[in-house]
């Protein structure tokens, strides 16, 4: 099996978010970046586990500039065999999906994995778009993936239960929590990553279908109101008239 894992660069979860250029750009100054956890902890690690069990190869792919190379090195240190970076802006999901699809088509991957979403923009679009462009089946939010020959059995957590799906490769999957356990790179992996190939590919012509008008931060959290546990009338009153949730 040839696995292709899509890797995004996202700000560390503790980042203090600010915007620049009239609130149209995320201000990257002083921000620490990490591999999108859904891509790293679940999609990449499950692909590596399956490769280690049945053989094959794991290629990672990213759409972005040279500033993405450190996160690709980390994914190589965790165990991916080689990396590809498509050298263009990643601000539009369709463009990203188009670039990845083009590379995937030319290199015939059996399983394409993405995280279920990135933790910064939460778009959750790229996996589905790749599947549509390549005309592959798409299984979203997978929490378990087993392969037998060419056939995958995939669990999806759904409201109140689990859905089990069977699908033949090639297919696209988006990874949710539970698909695998995080792997921390060790020194041997970091040393091996030094010489693993990281190929930079120029993009194909593709348009951005969306553009950002502005960003804004959520409203600041209000004060917490503590209510005496005996005073249920007051609790109901506040939930009904102030919070308006019941």
């Amino acid at each position, binding site marked *: 099996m040839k696995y292709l894992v899509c890797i995004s660069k996202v700000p560390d979860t*503790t980042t203090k978010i600010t915007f620049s250029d009239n609130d149209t750009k995320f201000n990257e100054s*002083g921000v*620490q970046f990490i591999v999108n956890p859904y891509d790293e902890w679940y999609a990449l690690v499950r692909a590596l586990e399956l490769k280690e069990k049945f053989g094959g190869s794991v290629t990672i792919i990213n759409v972005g500039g040279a500033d993405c*190379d*450190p996160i690709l*090195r*980390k994914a190589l*240190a965790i165990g991916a065999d080689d990396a590809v970076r498509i050298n263009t802006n990643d601000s539009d999901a369709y463009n990203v999906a188009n670039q990845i699809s083009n590379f995937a088509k030319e290199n015939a991957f059996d399983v394409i994995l993405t995280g279920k979403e990135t933790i910064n923009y939460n778009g959750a679009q790229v996996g589905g778009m790749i599947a549509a462009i390549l005309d592959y089946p798409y299984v979203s939010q997978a929490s378990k993936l087993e392969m037998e020959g060419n056939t995958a059995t995939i669990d999806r957590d759904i409201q109140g239960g689990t859905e089990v799906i069977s699908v033949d490769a090639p297919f696209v999957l988006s990874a949710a929590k539970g698909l695998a356990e995080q792997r*921390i*790179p*060790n*020194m*041997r992996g*970091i*040393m091996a990553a*030094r010489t693993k190939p990281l190929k930079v590919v120029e993009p194909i012509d593709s348009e951005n279908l969306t553009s950002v008008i502005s960003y804004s931060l959520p409203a600041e959290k209000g004060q917490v109101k503590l209510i005496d546990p005996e005073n249920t009338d007051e609790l109901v009153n506040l939930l009904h008239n102030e919070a308006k949730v019941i």
Partner: protein
Amino acid sequence: MAADRYQPHDFYQIDELLTDEQKLVRDSAREWLKKEVSPIIEDYYERAEFPKQIVPGLASIGAFGPYIPEEYGGAGLDQITYGLLMQELERVDSGVRSTASVQSSLVMYPIFKFGSEEQKQKYLPKLASGEMIGCFGLTEPDHGSNPGGMVTNFVDKGDHYLLNGAKMWISNSPFADIAVVWAKDETGRIHGLVVERGMDGFTTPEIHGKWSLRASATGELVFDNVKVPKENLLPGKSGLGAPLACLDSARYGIAWGAIGAALDCYDAAVRYSKERMQFDKPIGSFQLIQKKLAEMLTEITKAQVLTWRLGVLRNEGRATTAQISLAKRNNVDMALSIAREARQIHGGMGITNEYPIMRHMMNLESVITYEGTHDIHLLILGHHITELQAFK
């Protein structure tokens, strides 16, 4: 201990001076330590026991001899990466960092620098993988700041050396497989010898009752007519300069490590200041708390810049003993002061093991004394400034 909520602090964006690989090694070590060591460290500290089960993991993150070349099992990394690893280890516990410092700077370093090819092949790969743990015997009961006065000695018996004497305050000694021991020959010249556990007459009694570095094992090395094979003498260098070169390496690592302990105390204090309410406000809103936090960040930032520069000099082979003394002395003192201030900010909670503060503070009382005391480092600097020696 409550969950490890540590977040790094890099006020002057020193990260921009680091390579991607240096940051990857550091961040991976941090993740591993948070997952595997933070949850157990308070328990082992209280029990006064070194968590031996973490040794393979320490080896896997590169904590043992990261700058030793790959052909001998090391990672072939630079001195800044070594420093960053020591910082992350000491951020969790000075005792864990001590174990790695000793293994790297005081056991692997002398074998790599002064050992024969056979000695390097025999010991270094096993030390790098953690299969073997080493310790370093220089300090004696009556010779701490004055190691040159040591009485441990060996006599040439033709086909072997006969070693007698005792070493004191030796980190890792109770469970070490080998000891790099400094002893005088019949002419009074200091040499390094590799003594292996199991050699007749060699014992390693543990020192109990420490209120510091409790998660690290400390002991003695006792040599009672120990027959040491001649091939175990380190041939590359003799004289006091040989062990002092090892100390340069270890003290350099401690300078980085102390920043880790300081960062952990500062980080806990910042969080507590925002969460702890008094007079209906977070205590962080009071000027006296802000003064303490601002001074802590100032001192940490100065130490980060100073130590990064020392790392560059060390990578270029230009860092002097006096420069290393300045950094070790400054940074450990800085960390100890921050631990004490952070303890104050935490009020009564600061004395409990819910927070790492008091453990860091107690650990740092050793760190400020070992590897050259706080005062001896002043005298090394004084010697450098005046070219007049004050300690002899």
